[in-house]
């Protein structure tokens, strides 16, 4: 195979190409992995904001007692504070533009770490909300079913209770990891494969 000859033919190829029109500059959204992740995260956050707004009415819907309502509001306030912080972080990520005119290696590494960082942020927020919800459920049990709970606690060992708490946390962790891997992991994996093929000696 003569590559020099091939190169000449490649460069002398006079195929007619379609013109780039003004309309092409307006169409559709970008389709890089970062844009796809951003779009998915945006959709999820809109759902979360909606859920958070709905959660404000939980005490009315379930007719909470005054003490339970006060406890709920404290937990709700903490969740809202965390969500505001993380939503701000994600908003800055969303607005963070990228520069495709740098070299491919830098470009791929930027995409890889930016995606990793944001998925980690996403997971952290999910863990936090999960833990707070669990804590609220435990507190609500103490407040509403104190007698029953005392009787149960007397019969159960501390090791058993600690094991249950650990398993509950583990389930939250596994679900979060699987969710993140299912929705966002494939992009990171594909970029990592490309980086590795670039780094191979």
């Amino acid at each position, binding site marked *: *195979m*003569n*590559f020099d*000859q*091939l*190169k000449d*033919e*490649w*460069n*002398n*190829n006079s*195929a007619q*190409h*379609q*013109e*780039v*029109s*003004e309309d*092409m*500059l307006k*169409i*559709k959204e*970008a*389709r*890089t*992995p970062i844009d*796809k992740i951003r779009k998915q995260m945006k959709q999820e956050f809109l759902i979360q904001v909606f859920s958070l707004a709905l959660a404000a009415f939980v005490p009315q819907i379930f007719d909470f007692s005054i003490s339970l309502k006060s406890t709920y509001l404290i937990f709700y306030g903490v969740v809202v504070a965390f969500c505001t912080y993380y939503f701000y972080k994600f908003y800055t990520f969303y607005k963070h*533009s990228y*520069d*495709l*005119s*740098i*070299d*491919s*290696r*830098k*470009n*791929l590494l930027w*995409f890889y770490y930016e995606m990793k960082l944001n998925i980690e942020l996403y997971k952290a927020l999910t863990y936090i909300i999960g833990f707070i919800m669990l804590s609220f459920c435990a507190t609500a049990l103490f407040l509403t079913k104190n007698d029953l709970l005392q009787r149960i606690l007397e019969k159960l060992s501390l090791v058993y209770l600690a094991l249950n708490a650990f398993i509950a946390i583990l389930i939250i962790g596994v679900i979060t990891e699987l969710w993140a891997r299912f929705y966002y992991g494939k*992009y990171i994996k*594909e*970029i990592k*494969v*490309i980086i590795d*093929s*670039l780094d*191979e*000696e």
Partner: protein
Amino acid sequence: MLDIQKIFLQQINENKGIIHKVAKMYMDNPLDQEDLFQEIVMQLWKAYPSFKGTSKFSTWMYRVALNTAIVFFKKDHRKVDKVSLNEQVEIADFSDSHEKEEKLAYLYKAVQELNQIEKALIFLFLENQSHKEIAQNLGITEINARVKLNRTKEKLQQIIKKNGYEF
């Protein structure tokens, strides 16, 4: 139309062959090629304010076009029609009977078996870029670019041979 848009379109149209070639190198299906072509045009337009004119427009274009193609994923839901090598080249024969066209059609088909980086290496080589320029575009050392390019050429030769063609 804004002046900046006019200048951009003029520059793009003078070099549009680069985008077409990149799209054909990276996607084998015409619909995916069209998608990638549009994506590259859009990314070039988005990145245009960062083009300071310190390098040639085409040099800047190579980078943006290749970087877009390297991280571009096909639409998940699209069913790709599998067209065999011979069928594809027959189509090329009808439209243009020249041997050169046939050779390029075989080349485009063969490069589909290369990975994203190997495609970039072959593309830059065919575009007359030196090892140093290839290394700069990909962000690797010149030696690494040379080694990788040689390996990719060998791989490409084997693919073409395997497909029953020789040139």
